[in-house]
């Protein structure tokens, strides 16, 4: 069996699946249930001066009948007394010494206050600390959370204060509501952070009730922007994680729309050592971790990995600047006539939304009763097809449309290489440069 344990900044965790700081990690009761279910770690709901919350707090978007594709919240940090939270951390650690308990912290931007909370959290037995520099709503209005995380100098400064007293590894949780998240990771690192976790939630208005005109979630008819998360944000989070992995040399705990082992593998391949989950646990409960563990084990086994750590960062070198992509790589769509069901979605997508490279013959208007339709399969105009993938993406039938490479023995040339070649051969056309004809001319 492959080894799922991870080493995160020197802290060993039974598996990479951690619960992110949020409603599921509000109490020892919940976290112990989660550990019983199989979670490897949990980031405590952010501890700080207790706040008062509103009702309601969450809003979501559905996709047709799929619920909660995206979730938005205007809930603040823990509303429980600091000492209760710390006492419960100690209880959890006592019962689950092998599991990873991370104390998420947020206090006002005063050195002494930070020193105090850090010491107390470590005394309670937290394995790691996570500084919440990401909360985009409510707390930021009070000069905390994203208000810190959006100003690199503040982030560096407060991280530095914490490092003055901390003994455990320090994670800084980053807000995605910035122009360049790698820059913020570097700022945290400059302050002494041992790791970063990302992404916190995105600024969002999740929806407006078109009957009452009130935003959702509604608090007596009013709303406020909240933090957006769930499956819908995953691609944006993946990009941000990859950007930090590429440009800032620092361990990462990945967050953003992770709901199953496949999502987790993607985050790990892009550089996350651990992954944090919140929305999926809020949607389905802690039990989802069972398949996350099982699925990851099977995946590692099938791929011949002996440890989950081997995944970390494996795809990072595959993320390149656009200018380094091969312009001579050519693929075109092929439609499997046997599999085609005749929905013509590929046709209309290509015709209206892409490059007009698919044709369908008119269906004969016969009697359609008592039998199937005569099958008319759309076909690709191969000379026109630009290999954009759109038809394959909209096709509802698995493997019906495949993208095939048509010039396998081509000479690769990227846009950057093209610029270089042009510098040497300014008289040549792009076409000539791309296909190496310039070489003959220049000599």
């Amino acid at each position, binding site marked *: 069996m492959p080894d799922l344990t991870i080493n995160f900044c020197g802290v060993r965790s039974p598996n990479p699946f951690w619960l992110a700081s949020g409603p599921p990690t509000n109490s020892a009761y919940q976290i112990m249930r989660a550990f019983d279910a199989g979670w490897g770690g949990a980031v405590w709901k952010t501890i700080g001066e207790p706040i008062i919350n509103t009702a309601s707090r969450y809003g979501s978007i559905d996709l*047709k009948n799929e619920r909660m594709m995206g979730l938005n919240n205007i809930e603040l940090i823990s509303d429980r007394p600091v000492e209760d939270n710390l006492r419960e951390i100690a209880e959890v650690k006592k019962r689950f010494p092998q599991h990873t308990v991370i104390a998420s912290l947020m206090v006002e931007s005063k050195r002494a206050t930070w020193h105090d909370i850090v010491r107390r959290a470590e005394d309670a037995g937290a394995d790691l600390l996570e500084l919440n520099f990401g909360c985009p709503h409510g707390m930021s209005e009070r000069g905390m959370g994203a208000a810190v995380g959006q100003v690199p100098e503040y982030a560096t400064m407060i991280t530095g204060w914490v490092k003055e007293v901390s003994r455990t590894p320090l994670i800084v949780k980053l807000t995605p509501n910035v122009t360049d998240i790698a820059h913020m990771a570097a700022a945290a690192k400059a302050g002494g952070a041992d790791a970063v976790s990302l992404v916190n939630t995105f600024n969002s208005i999740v929806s407006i009730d078109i009957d009452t005109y009130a935003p959702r979630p509604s608090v007596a008819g009013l709303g406020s922007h909240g933090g957006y998360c769930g499956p819908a944000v995953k691609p944006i989070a993946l990009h941000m994680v990859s950007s930090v992995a590429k440009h800032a040399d620092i361990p990462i705990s990945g967050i953003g729309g992770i709901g199953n082992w496949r999502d987790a593998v993607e985050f790990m391949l892009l550089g996350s050592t651990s992954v944090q989950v919140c929305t999926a646990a809020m949607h389905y409960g802690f039990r989802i971790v069972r398949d996350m563990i099982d699925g990851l084990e099977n995946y590692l086994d099938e791929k011949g990995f002996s440890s989950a750590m081997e995944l970390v960062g494996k795809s990072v070198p595959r993320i390149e600047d656009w200018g380094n992509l091969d312009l001579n790589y050519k693929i075109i769509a092929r439609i499997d006539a046997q599999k085609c*069901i005749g929905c*013509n979605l590929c046709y209309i997508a290509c015709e209206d939304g892409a490059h007009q490279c698919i044709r369908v013959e008119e*269906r004969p208007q016969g009697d359609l*009763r*008592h039998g199937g339709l005569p099958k008319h399969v759309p076909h690709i105009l191969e000379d026109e097809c630009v290999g954009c993938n759109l038809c394959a993406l909209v096709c509802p039938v698995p493997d019906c449309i495949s993208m095939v490479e048509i010039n396998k023995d081509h000479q690769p040339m990227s846009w950057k290489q093209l610029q270089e070649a042009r510098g040497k051969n300014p008289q040549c056309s792009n076409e000539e440069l791309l296909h190496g004809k310039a070489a003959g001319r220049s000599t």
Partner: protein
Amino acid sequence: MLKEPAPKLPLEQLEKNFADINPPLTAAQALEEGSRCLFCHDAPCIKACPTGIDVPHFIRQIITGNLRGSARTILEANILGQSCARVCPTSVLCEGACVLNAEGKKPVEIGRLQRYAVDPVIARGTQLFKPGTPNGYRVALIGAGPASLSCAAELRKRGYQTVIFDSNPQPGGLNTYGIAAYKMRARDVAMEVEMVRSLGVEIRSGVTIGKAVSVAELERDYDATFIGVGLGETEDLRIPGEDLAGCRDALSFIEETKSKSFDQVQVAKRVAVIGAGNTAIDVVTAARRLGAEEVYMVYRRSPEEMSAFDYEYELAKKDTVAFVWQAQPVRVVDGSGDRAGHVQALECVRTQRGPKDTRGRSSFVPVPGTEFRLDVGMVVKALGQKRKLEFLQAIPNLELANGCIVVDPQTMQTRNPRYFAGGDCVNGGGEVVDAVAHGKKAALGIHHVLESVAGRKAATTSQV
């Protein structure tokens, strides 16, 4: 009065037996089912619908919560979309054409989604359409079935004055009288008819053309006439004993289940139904549901030749009907003693496959010496309907083929240019949706013809 009636079931039980076979979808079910629609481009379901309802569009409107728009999409193409949602043989039309079938998946339940969209609009009497500006033309329509209702609604939208004449006490035609109660109730049809009427269509019920109003009067008072009279009585068996009490025709039996309280409909303990079309299925299922203990469906040919749709056949199977294949009725047996004059049994003879006919269909010929009896107290004839020859021949210059009116398939115009026709009297017996399509097409045909007359008039005037 039947001599050996089935034991009476309590009305509550009867209502349950005839409950909606395809109950309406809830909002959540409609969203889930509608979400399965791929929103095909140039969708085959649209082409498979005789009225060309834009199915993917109306389903999308359901999903986005635009129910009123969805109903409008449906009713614009098919004014009787409520009936059709219930009675269409969707498995051989839209749902049969659904591309999901090709992937081995269940097709989208288009019929039920259509019902989900249309029912609330019909029930609330929401006015989705307005009559057109009056254009001065008057059109008479004979028969108040689906073809005429569809034609009249379409004409009203274009400003024609329309009057429907119908000999029945209630409008709706076979929708009202001839559809199994578990598919559609008379009150559903009444609401639908009301919607058509609210467009300004005048319906004169209980008026028979040729009696109360003459054909000549129609020709005098109206610019064009649409014939949507459907078919006539059930075909006769032409065997001895056909006149015995307890031997009756399918349509009047179905009509009773539609117009009376279920506990007022008489059914025998044992019933034989002759025929294997969709109407025969309606009868056998109705008989079982009314409490008949043994119901036989007697058919001269084999299951292969049966004209009933597969899903109808399934209904009969579920109702535990006994199928008597390859049996030809030879005599309805008279009772003796106090049952004299009443059906006692149905005598049949086995058939075997004979030579194929010109259409390639096997003939079935009786096998002498294989006679047998089914002891039944009721025999129902479901052999298809007769043509209304007498009536049709009273209209001048109609061309008939095989008892059906010959029309131009584009305009539904008959050989007599002032008459148009559609529905069963043209196709010899089709679906409600075919009749609706005919009616719509005929309305456009009438409009085209009368407009070109108007055009000519205008041209003449301008020359003067």
